[in-house]
């Protein structure tokens, strides 16, 4: 198919933009460079943390949009991007965690463990990140073939991960819950769509062929 040949690299580059922006911001904040207009403000670590967190959620949402879009537009093309978007969700989640551990907590694993045990919103976030690992590891076509039907069952974990992600966000805002509420609404629509589909034709999900599974 012709369009994917160039669409994919373009989409890939676009997905990297938030990370590039943060990278330039760090270079500016540390005085290495002076790129006009790119500033992470007075608390760059918090901005990095929040930007990576937001983009993790964004990519989880985008990934979850792919199969509904396929259903609605009857375009299979969407599914070709699903893996890439899913992996970007993992990439930003990993970056989010790295900024948290390395920059915010200065690499003190003891503090990290304390936080995981004591702070429910961090427990949830860590759980979400941990659950993303097997999905990222089994994202290759080879793994998909090898796991067969179990692959789609495994990758349904993304529903739980997205819920954990939004919950993690919701639980850490001080008072203004408008933004996490927006994510929760979006997620409710995406998951609701699947429930509705399944209700309409309950047989479809269970007999889905692994190669083009409906898991995500």
């Amino acid at each position, binding site marked *: 198919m012709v369009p994917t040949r160039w669409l994919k690299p373009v989409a890939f580059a676009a997905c990297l933009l938030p990370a590039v922006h943060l990278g330039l911001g760090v270079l500016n*904040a540390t005085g290495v460079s002076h790129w006009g207009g790119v500033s992470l403000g007075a608390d760059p670590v918090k901005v990095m943390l929040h930007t990576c967190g937001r983009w993790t959620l964004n990519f989880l949402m985008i990934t979850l949009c792919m199969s509904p879009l396929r259903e609605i537009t009857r375009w299979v093309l969407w599914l070709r991007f699903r893996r890439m978007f899913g992996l970007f969700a993992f990439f930003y989640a990993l970056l989010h965690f790295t900024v948290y551990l390395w920059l915010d907590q200065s690499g003190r694993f003891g503090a990290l463990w304390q936080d995981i045990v004591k702070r429910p919103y961090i427990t949830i976030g860590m759980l979400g990140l941990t659950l993303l690992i097997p999905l990222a590891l089994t994202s290759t076509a080879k793994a998909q073939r090898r796991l067969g039907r179990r692959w789609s069952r495994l990758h349904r974990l993304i529903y739980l991960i997205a819920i954990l992600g939004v919950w993690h966000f919701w639980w850490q805002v001080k008072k203004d819950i408008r933004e996490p509420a927006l994510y929760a609404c979006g997620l409710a629509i995406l998951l609701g769509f699947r429930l509705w589909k399944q209700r309409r034709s309950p047989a479809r999900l269970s007999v889905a062929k692994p190669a083009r599974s409906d898991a995500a």
Partner: protein
Amino acid sequence: MKILPSEITPYTTYLSRRALVAGGLGWAAVQSLGGFAGKAFGQPPAALKYTRNAAASIADPPNSYADISTYNNYYEFGTDKSDPSEHAQKFRTQPWQVTIGGEAEVTGTFGLEDILKPHPLEERVYRLRCVEAWSMVIPWIGFPLGDLLKRFKPTSKAKFVEFKTLYDPKQMPGQRVPVLEWPYVEGLRIDEAMHPLAIMAVGLYGKTLPNQNGAPLRLIVPWKYGFKGIKAIVGISFTERVPRTTWAGSNPSEYGFFANVNPQVDHPRWSQATERRIGANAFGPRQPTLPFNGYGAQVAALYAGMDLRRYF
């Protein structure tokens, strides 16, 4: 009809006149500054006359003016840290009146100049610790709150002092959204309010407060979390009962009335043991939070015998 002095003399003109006259500058300069400050909208910060109170100042280098004036919480102008500096520029701080009420002999509505007139201004470099676990060092210009309160002769029934922020959703876009209960209310126990470290601030870095930092009049209680430092004050009331303060009232399990900085008592959702000092070393390690934000030697006695885990 009574004409208040605040309706005649713009506040910044008044303050800058004080500065210039004291500084021995000529009438022409006063005139030009007066004309400058006469623009009713978006008063730019004007120079203040003050002395430096070294004894009440810490030695840490202060944060930059840019950091202090672009990174803060002021939900009346939005919930992002950059919202106040973006949305407060047209905020009108004159004329400005403060209503004094409750358990005191002298009550009524006063123009801001009448409130400020008797108080010599001083600079105090204080730590500011936000409940969100970040901190700054800020050179405030102000005067002891106790000196102001004594002028109203609080009665023996005055056990607490309640402060109120202006309620004006037209000017304060954040008040159009019910994120908090408006207007913002804060309060202190009377002995806390009379403590010499508690100040009313009118400026920072030698100039009048930028609108986004609480102009024209705000509270600074350096041993408490930043949200106690109520901004744009229009009401002060002496009460017998604990005031229903905004954060403690809206979420009593997470925010207390006292809100003393305490590394031992965590916020239910995050640790208060360390803080990120905004500024030069932004990527450096977090630093330990000090009990009472480092002012324990001066203020711990106020809370002798109190269980600070219960009264957080």
